[in-house]
């Protein structure tokens, strides 16, 4: 990989990282999945959320800790996630790259049906 020393984010990783950041203290599996579904309009499985979270945590972009257990959860504890400074840096970098790439885009054909 060419980008191993850089803060590289995949698309879903970026979405998830932003969701973790925006949900602040309430970022756990259920809220993250719902938030992403509502914001992006894509159906998202809890499994893909968790595998991506694991990857992000492995990279050091987020950290997690065990939360409380409620009866609706069958007494199972939640796991909360929080963004860390490498994650923030990765978001900045991704944003810069995107902005650069989009800056030169003109006359992208409108295929219709999509909001501008």
């Amino acid at each position, binding site marked *: 990989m060419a980008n191993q020393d850089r803060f590289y984010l995949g698309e879903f990783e970026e979405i998830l990282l932003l969701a973790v950041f925006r949900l602040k203290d309430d970022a756990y599996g259920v809220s993250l999945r719902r938030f992403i579904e509502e914001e992006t309009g894509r159906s998202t*499985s*809890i499994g893909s959320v968790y595998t991506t979270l694991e990857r992000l945590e492995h990279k050091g972009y987020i950290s997690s800790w065990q939360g409380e257990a409620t009866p609706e959860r069958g007494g199972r504890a939640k796991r909360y996630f929080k963004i860390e400074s490498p994650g923030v840096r990765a978001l900045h970098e991704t944003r810069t790259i995107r902005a650069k790439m989009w800056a030169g885009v003109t006359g992208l054909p409108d295929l219709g049906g999509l909001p501008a």
Partner: protein
Amino acid sequence: VRFRDNSLRHSRWHAIGAFLRHPSTGRALSLRRIQAVTGMGMFHEKPREPVSPKELGVFLKRTRMARGHSIYSIHLHTGIQKEYLEAIERGDFAVLPLGLYRRTFVDIYARELSIPSAALQPFYEAISEAVELPQPPDNSVAVKTEIKPPRLGEYLLYLFLTKRERVSLIGDIEEEYVDVYERFGRRSAKIWYYKQVFDSLRPLIRRALAKTGVVLWLWKHTGWIYEHVLQFINNLKLK
């Protein structure tokens, strides 16, 4: 105090033995001495359940005498009437006032003899009568926990989850299942659940394969079965 089998199995004896000190030297008493003072039988014997009020009385009386106190001095220190103290020592708890007082008197008496109340814990069931009012059952929690997602999905997920994810991910699915159940009913909840499980299995299996690499070939040739199942579930219409 060391026990013959060196265990805490008879924690009642342990608790009683730990606080007993020789009145003049302050040293811990020998097993034989504790046995003589408390009159409570062999230390390697399993204590009988429940302990009778009589035994408690005898225990308190012997402890009091070992400390060199009279009933009258206890009465002066604690303010408990002599008749009550004597009744406690006889094990005649019916004489004492009902309810909490009964326990409180024994508590105060024991504190005067510097017996920790933990040591008396096993006796309390013997002297208290059922004064606790029955609590109305909390239905809201009970009903909620009755809604359980199908076990099958859980088992399937278990195969591919890391130890840490098992608690949180399966808890998450269950939480959302209960939510969907309450809003849309059982059938929708089940469809939602299986869709979630199978959608989740795809990235989980992919991750597991990436880790092993060996089974990649197998997946390549049997993956179509999985795709069929997924398509079937996706074709079920949510209400």
